[in-house]
């Protein structure tokens, strides 16, 4: 029983991390129909910039939580600027190009960011100081620490905030209008370029948050940390229905739990034929299953192709 609860907590933590990153993918996709493959790299830059800030601030004797907040603030600003530049340089000139073109530039940007980070921060793994409270608590015999709780809360709050922003605010209305038809939205006085840029900026701030929390949770940061994380989060976004904000979180949490339970129980379920090395196979098997029956994801709506 306690093992099961522990696996659920493991899965929820992992899932919340996926969810935070997936939100960035889904926002951009929702508006532009573009898969921003560089998003995982923005997460990585966020983590490494925050780490650099932590190191600079370590001498100031400020309380750790304050250092963490300032570090996050700096990382968020750098990432927002980065997200804005990526959109301006790599995507906007290709706005009306065939769909494959921006996909290729996205992969290109991802590679460039990785290499830049490698030049800047080196190839080795960096230890991330434990600034956030990390006291462990017992629930039903399982352990959960405060960083994990913060991650789950952050994912929940980011989702709620985004849904509120998109559904209730004036900016959100402009976003939805641009998503539906950029030309008509422009005729109605919406500056589509500004809206798209803002989407990237918001998504990148979320990426910075994810980067700080991921590196705090694992205590480690590295110039390649964003790639696999981005791929998994993208999978989560597709599972939940890409373009749908609630779907990104649902998909992320589901993927995390499936992975944890898969790794934990697949061996027992198959009588030891498959071990925990099949946890990814298991996760993608579920994804294929969902997509066969619901091609647009769990919460995705059927939308007709934009003209």
């Amino acid at each position: 029983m306690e093992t099961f609860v522990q696996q659920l907590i493991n899965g929820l933590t992992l899932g919340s991390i996926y969810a935070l990153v997936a939100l960035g993918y889904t926002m951009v996709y929702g508006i532009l129909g573009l898969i921003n493959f560089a998003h995982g790299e923005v997460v990585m830059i966020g983590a490494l910039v925050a780490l650099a800030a932590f190191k600079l601030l370590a001498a100031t004797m400020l309380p750790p939580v304050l250092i963490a907040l300032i570090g996050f603030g700096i990382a968020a600003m750098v990432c927002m600027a980065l997200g804005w530049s990526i959109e301006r340089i790599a995507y906007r000139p290709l706005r009306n190009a065939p769909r494959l073109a921006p996909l290729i530039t996205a992969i290109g940007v991802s590679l460039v960011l990785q290499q830049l980070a490698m030049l800047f921060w080196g190839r080795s793994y960096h230890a991330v100081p434990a600034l956030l409270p990390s006291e462990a608590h017992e629930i039903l015999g399982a352990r959960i620490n405060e960083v994990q709780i913060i991650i789950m809360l952050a994912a929940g709050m980011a989702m709620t905030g985004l849904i509120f922003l998109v559904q209730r605010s004036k900016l959100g209305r402009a976003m939805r209008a641009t998503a539906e038809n950029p030309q008509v939205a422009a005729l109605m006085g919406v500056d589509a370029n500004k809206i798209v840029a803002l989407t990237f900026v918001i998504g990148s701030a979320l990426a910075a948050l994810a980067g700080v929390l991921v590196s705090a949770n694992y205590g480690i940061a590295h110039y390649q940390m964003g790639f696999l994380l981005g791929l998994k989060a993208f999978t989560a976004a597709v599972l939940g229905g890409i373009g749908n904000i609630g779907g990104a979180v649902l998909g992320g949490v589901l993927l995390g739990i499936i992975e944890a339970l898969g790794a934990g129980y697949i061996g027992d379920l198959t009588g030891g034929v498959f071990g925990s090395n099949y946890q990814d196979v298991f996760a993608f098997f579920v994804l294929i299953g969902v997509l066969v029956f619901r091609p647009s994801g769990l919460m995705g709506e059927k939308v007709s192709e934009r003209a």
Partner: protein
Amino acid sequence: MKTQTLVLSLSAALALLACSKSEPPAPAAAGAPVAQAPLIVKIGHAAPLTGPQAHIGKDTEYGAQLAVDDVNAANIQVGGRTLQLQLIGEDDQADPKQGTIVAQKFVDDKVNVVIGHMNSGTTLPASVTYANAGIPQVSASATNPEYTKHGYKTAFRVMTNDEAQGKVLGEFAAGKLAAKTIAVIDDKTQYGEGIAIEFKKAASASGAKVVAEEHTDDKAVDFAAILTKIKATKPDLIFFGGMDPQAAPLSMQMKKLGIKSILLMGDGGCTADFIKNAGAAAEGQYCSKPGVPVEKMPGGPAFIAKYKAKYNAPIQLYAPYAYDAVMVVVEAIKRAGNADSAAILAELPKTAYKGVTTDIAFDEKGDIKDAAVTLYIAKGGQWEQVDTIGGKPAAPAAASAEPIPAATPSPAAIPAAK
């Protein structure tokens, strides 16, 4: 045009080098009339010189270069001719495909002997090429047991293989650490899985029980799920076959989940980076490395000084082994009286040489005899030597290093667990 100038400047440089090193003016300049031609021996050296492991590859090449310089300066006479070594360093990018290309290039260049390759993944495919061409190959660093198992007469190594290391680790776990129940995690790579298998064999043979076997990969950072599963089996010890980027978060997540088992690792986790990144979670964990620490090698201190003087950098990993690999070949050439590949090949199995790293002699497979493995514990932010198993007793600090009694764990030897 370009190659011509290169060749010219190279030969000029060589001539300069030779003149400055040996007392009787060695006629190395091409085309110069010579009274008695020196015995030129071409040594191929292959290691990754670009990519993430470039620093380790260059270090290996430096080690070989030091040996070449020493031999050329020593003015050794073989069959009445002065022995002159030429090192041809090639970059195999740690890539098996590139490794075979480099191997073919060495064969075409008619090198007398090859030192390398650095990685097991490149050494294995390249060994086929050298075997077919009859060129002796001495690896300074490839640890995968497969390398010497194919029965190639050309394959040698001066480094402890994973079979020996896994065996020592398994016996250490069941013996000194008195672990009765053991969980094993590997990263599914050739190295990680290989050493985990050898570890399991030895630990089981020594009376420990493997209660869980889990797998991850060499990119993962989240081990919570497999650790939770392992926690339920309450093992005394967790063995990890993999590299430090995974080992560090693994040990941190063990602490987070409240797992009190000892973590034991092979050389992949036995790095300064592991301690740096795992921080407090590194304390009290164990690891092993082939050979003995450089400082404790028979020729260690002198080698460190020589290396520092020439390259002004710390030794990364395999430089002393590469040095010995060249030296043992030279020893075989001296015995044979000539430097043909076939002659070296005939002498190498019979050659014994007191090297920097240890006393080198090969067994019938081409593996080093009496291979040593050193065990370490993380204490106060550093790896501290616990014990050295096997090898020649050259390390004075390993005074307490009695061979571990297999299957008779003494409870008194349990380390103070944190």
